[in-house]
């Protein structure tokens, strides 16, 4: 970046966090950069400084009250409680009195006083042995930023006009809430993943957002025109008139399509000729269960349980897990929830894990669970107990992560029988007849799919890992990221093989990788025979619209043509032309076939 001639547009590929298209001037938001300088006040300025502090606290209180209200509405009481507690801290004697004391006695500037007092509290929390308390240090940091911002630049937020695009290194879920209230059009971030709280909040509020790993926040001038596509994960800075026009058309169509799609949330996921395809949600945070009905999800195809553990910094015990699973199953009724057993390792580590030279090929997923019965057994017990709270005809399903050997499936089934026996002996209410499926995310499993289909009750294809392992490409590595192609013929071969083997055994197959949410790929996956697609819920309505535009026979013909094509670029063209033919409006809204 910066090498381009001045005046030229810059196109940056990132990851879409929240779908939608937006065009507007950049507003650079420096969250976390609020630093106060030490300043000594003249005695006659003390009274005014105390008043300035009170004004900033009052403003922060009003902000938090608004955020808590929206959080309550959108995400439920658990999320709102955090903002309520933060509001309480503003008037806390350990904060408010300590700061006013600092100002009055030492004639310190309010910003410096706030920083000194809260740095001290934060240091005490961060030094704690308890992960729970170290986490609370983040609340203190939020308070500090909020008050400092309101002190130093009380005008900052109110200066954001409607129709701006916020560019920030990072944002909190609370920031996104406030921005959306102020009519912000979209967000560009330097950090945060599709499963972060920020992303979930942005999707819940319909604010398009893209995360770009290129440090954009430092390279955009305030007011520069930004065009962003939260679906394709694209950001264009200073777009040319032609790009701008293309984006405007895209934005218009996108708005029309999402408005239309919202009305179809309750319709079944079927092809034009009535062939059913289960369109389900990937869920990571408990708050998301509240949104499933609104999005029209036919159940949860992938409930990742890692965050439950990682946010607590320690293993949850059986009762805590039970309560979470029970609530999840109830919220998803009448549909089923597929619970993936704890998939730690790779980039998600618990404190007991040691550092590995190659974590993606290391001690992870099922390998950890089978080595640590103290993790596996409480989770199995909690799920079996929670299962009695699911609809009788839609019990939860168990999904095993990172399977590579037949014996691993047998070991889990043995543990399951053991746990069920213990629950029965203890007279604890439970349900043991749960389907046990496996992730197909390692080439070994796809290659030997016939054998694995004989021991599993269903397959769930994780295309992200399957692609990474098949092509030996780490997509987090910028140098090789362009080689990461989920539609590479070798990957499609493995996907097709897994589906064929599963259907020969009469077991269902779902796809839960990122391609499941890409409407260009929907017809191909259906044509290959996939029974259900599981994706981030915000994408469901669009994928459903696409699904309803083609017949099963057309999808099969497309899949055959794609399978015969050795050139990945040609595959892209086949998919784009299929989408343009069957849903032209959507194709142009999504920029499929657009320049360049």
């Amino acid at each position, binding site marked *: 970046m910066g090498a381009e001639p001045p005046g030229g547009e810059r196109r940056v590929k990132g990851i879409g966090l929240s779908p939608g298209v937006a065009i507007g001037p950049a507003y650079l938001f420096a969250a976390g950069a609020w630093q106060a300088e030490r300043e000594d006040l003249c005695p006659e300025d003390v009274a005014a400084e105390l008043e300035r502090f009170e004004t900033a606290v009052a403003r922060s209180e009003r902000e938090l009250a608004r955020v808590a209200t929206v959080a309550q509405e959108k995400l439920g009481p658990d999320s709102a*409680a955090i903002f309520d*507690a933060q509001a*309480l*801290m503003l008037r806390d004697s350990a904060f408010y009195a300590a700061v006013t004391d600092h100002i009055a006695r030492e004639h310190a500037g309010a910003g410096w006083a706030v920083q000194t007092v809260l740095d001290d*509290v934060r240091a005490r929390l961060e030094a704690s*042995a308890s992960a729970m308390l170290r986490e*609370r240090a983040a*609340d203190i940091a939020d308070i500090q930023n909020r008050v400092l911002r309101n002190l130093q630049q009380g005008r900052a937020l109110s200066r954001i006009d409607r129709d701006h695009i916020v560019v920030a290194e990072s944002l909190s879920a609370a920031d996104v809430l406030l921005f959306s209230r102020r009519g912000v059009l979209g967000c560009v971030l330097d950090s945060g993943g599709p499963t972060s709280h920020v992303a979930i909040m942005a999707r819940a509020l319909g604010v398009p957002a893209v995360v770009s790993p290129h440090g954009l926040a430092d390279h955009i001038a305030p007011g520069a025109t930004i065009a962003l596509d939260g679906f394709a994960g694209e950001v264009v800075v200073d777009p040319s008139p032609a790009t701008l026009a293309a984006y405007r058309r895209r934005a218009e169509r996108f708005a029309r399509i999402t408005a239309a799609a919202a009305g179809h949330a309750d319709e079944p996921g079927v092809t034009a000729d009535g062939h059913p395809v289960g369109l389900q949600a990937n869920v990571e945070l408990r708050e998301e269960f509240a949104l499933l009905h609104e999005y029209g999800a036919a159940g949860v195809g992938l409930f990742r349980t890692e965050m439950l553990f990682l946010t607590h910094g320690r293993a949850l*015990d059986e009762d*805590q897990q039970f309560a979470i699973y029970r609530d999840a199953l109830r919220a998803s009724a009448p549909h089923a929830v597929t619970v993936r057993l704890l998939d730690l390792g790779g980039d998600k580590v618990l404190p007991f894990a040691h550092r590995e030279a190659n974590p993606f090929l290391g001690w992870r997923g099922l390998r950890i669970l089978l080595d640590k019965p103290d993790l596996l057994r409480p989770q199995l017990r909690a799920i079996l107990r929670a299962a009695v709270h699911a609809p009788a005809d839609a019990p939860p399903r168990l999904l095993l992560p990172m399977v590579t050997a037949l014996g691993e499936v047998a070991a889990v089934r043995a543990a399951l029988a053991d746990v069920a026996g213990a629950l029965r002996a203890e007279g604890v209410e439970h349900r043991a007849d749960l389907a046990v499926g496996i992730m197909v995310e390692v080439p070994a499993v796809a290659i030997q799919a016939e054998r694995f289909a004989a021991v599993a009750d269903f397959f769930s294809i994780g295309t992200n890992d399957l692609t990474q392992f098949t092509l030996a490409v780490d997509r987090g590595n910028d140098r090789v990221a362009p080689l990461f192609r989920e539609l590479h013929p070798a990957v499609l071969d493995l996907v097709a093989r897994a589906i064929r083997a599963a259907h020969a055994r009469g077991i269902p197959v779902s796809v839960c990788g990122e391609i499941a949410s890409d409407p260009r790929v929907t017809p191909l996956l259906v044509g290959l025979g996939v029974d259900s697609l599981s994706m981030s819920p915000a994408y469901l309505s669009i994928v459903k619209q696409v699904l309803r535009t083609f017949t099963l026979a057309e999808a099969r013909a497309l899949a055959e043509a794609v399978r015969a094509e050795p050139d990945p670029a040609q595959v892209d063209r086949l998919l784009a032309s299929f989408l343009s033919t069957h849903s032209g409006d959507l194709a142009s809204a999504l920029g499929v076939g657009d320049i360049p």
Partner: protein
Amino acid sequence: MIVREVTIRNRAGLHTRPASMIVREASRFESEFFIRLDGYEINGKSIIGVMTLAADQGTTLELHFDGPDEAAAADALEAVFENGFGEPV
């Protein structure tokens, strides 16, 4: 002055939500309210103070009440602790 001994019963310990319950309840009374743990004393009407106690499940705390409505305050706060803050125990 009234002193009561209580134990943290809920599994998650004294995190943000329980801390705010304690502070809200304590603020209804005029009496001063302090919590002691291992010689460390904090103002029980301060949520930041309560959080820095870092009290896990099973920890025993000393509650000190001093003021005109100390008896009522002691009973009310003891009940909040005994209920495990309405969380799984």
